[in-house]
């Protein structure tokens, strides 16, 4: 089988906070319609890496990069690229659920859609419903869309955030430890969701949970001390890692 074409690529990417290097010289590529896991101990740079893919890194204090990040072959750090437009194509879900507290469930999902301008009420309702169905939340909230989003449980809030992220039809979805604050049941639902989502989106997920990476991802990249140590198909990474460090981390000897 031929390698699927790369959707997102990084080329000698180095990410800095002021004069501190958080990430050194990472070259990686992510194929479309797959789930890509980023693993590694805390502070290894995997979250920073994720945040360079939608230019959120540059919003952190002192954040800047060298090297290139390509989305469908185009450098997203090109001066001609509008970061706001880019973030509508590369969505992001965070560790803690972040519903907008003053908005209803419906308004939360519609929040990103309103940016892209003129949608009729019917179109808006249709997309909101589709996104909520996609995020496996529709059945639980269809009768209370006007309710405040904070009334939902943590797991529901996180699925709401996923619905909000996919509503504007991004091409890539980044997830930064999306299940870290959830109970096992909520975690399981999100993991099942990833299988559904990868049919339409390219997914990059940062996780602290080795079993999670093994369960949900097609490829895995291992980060350690600001460098990308090893990457490859998940099965190979977990059964026959090339690097001793990878093996040590995966088998739980450190991190």
């Amino acid at each position, binding site marked *: 089988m031929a390698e699927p074409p790369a959707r997102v690529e990084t080329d000698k990417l180095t990410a800095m906070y002021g004069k501190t290097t958080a990430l050194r010289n990472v070259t990686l590529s992510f194929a479309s319609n797959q789930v890509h896991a980023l693993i590694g101990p805390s502070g290894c740079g995997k979250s920073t890496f994720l945040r360079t893919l*939608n230019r*959120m890194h540059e*919003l952190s204090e002192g954040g800047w990069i060298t090297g290139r990040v390509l989305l469908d072959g185009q450098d997203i750090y090109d001066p001609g690229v509008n970061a*706001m*437009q*880019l*973030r*509508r194509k590369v*969505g*992001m879900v*965070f560790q*803690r659920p*972040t519903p*907008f*507290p*003053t*908005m*209803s469930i419906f308004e939360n999902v519609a*929040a*990103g859609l309103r*940016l892209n301008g003129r949608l009729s009420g019917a179109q808006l309702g249709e997309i909101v419903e589709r996104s909520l169905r996609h995020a496996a939340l529709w059945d639980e909230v269809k009768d209370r869309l006007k*309710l*405040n989003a904070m009334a939902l449980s943590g797991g529901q809030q996180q699925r709401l*955030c996923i619905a*909000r*992220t996919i509503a*504007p039809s991004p091409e890539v979805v980044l997830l930064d430890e999306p299940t870290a604050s959830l109970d096992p049941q909520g975690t399981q639902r999100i993991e099942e969701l990833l299988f559904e989502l990868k049919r339409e989106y390219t997914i990059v997920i940062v996780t602290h949970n080795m079993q999670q990476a093994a369960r949900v991802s097609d490829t895995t990249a291992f980060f350690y001390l600001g460098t990308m140590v090893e990457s490859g198909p998940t099965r190979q990474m977990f059964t026959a890692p090339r690097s001793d460090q990878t093996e040590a981390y995966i088998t739980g000897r450190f991190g």
Partner: protein
Amino acid sequence: MNRRAIRRLASNLMVGLMVLAVVLAVLPLFFILLHLVLKGASSLSWDFFTKMPVPAGETGGGVANAIVGTLIIVGTASLIGVPVGVGAGIYCAEYPHSRLTWLSRFVADVMNGTPSIVVGVFAWTWIVARQKHFSALAGSVALALLMVPMVMRTTEEMIKLVPNSLREAALALGYPRWRTSLSVVVPTTLPGIVTGTLLAVARIAGETAPLLFTALGSQYLSFRINQPMAALPLTVFTYATGPYEEWHRFAWAAALVLILVVLLLGVGARLAIGRSSVANG
């Protein structure tokens, strides 16, 4: 005595001390209110709210002109001061490292410490002295100047309480910064901003010194912002320092009304917030 009993004793002692502190903090307020009601309530009547003042020596009359005047002067001051204060507060919270933020904070802190009578003198120099007559507008400007730093600092502090993760969530959706502030961050903290603004309104509603040589006071009902106008604090000041027994009773009543107006403002706005958040939810 076992350890558990000692711990319980210590706990009860500390709770008792805290209750004492709360009582000590609330007691003066309670006594002020009680005193005002005892001294002022007897003079309150329908006439007091609807009639104009009468010449010294006559009985009856009211302070309708001062109530209307206070509403106009404080309302105008809020119209000027609240947008500027809230806007500056948002700017300072969202761009904490800019030079302008550093400067505005510094100026606001200095202004917060400036005696209100100095601000009154400033308004007198710049508006009254140039126009060559007293005016309510000059009073409003003085009060607005007092209000801006208070509103600005509370707005800033309130916005800083909004977790950064919420801001990032909006930015990651492709929101521009200004829209992140206005449609996500500010609504989230709106009750706090409104409360801070109300405290500022209540503060300036009772200010007397800046009005002494700007709005001046008046015996007549006036709606002209460019002319001298009556105000409750001025009425209290004039009547309380006057020689007549009748005036003293009126001063107490006017002070009571002033407090009631401030209380009403607060309660009304709180109801308004409650309703709007229900509508959103």
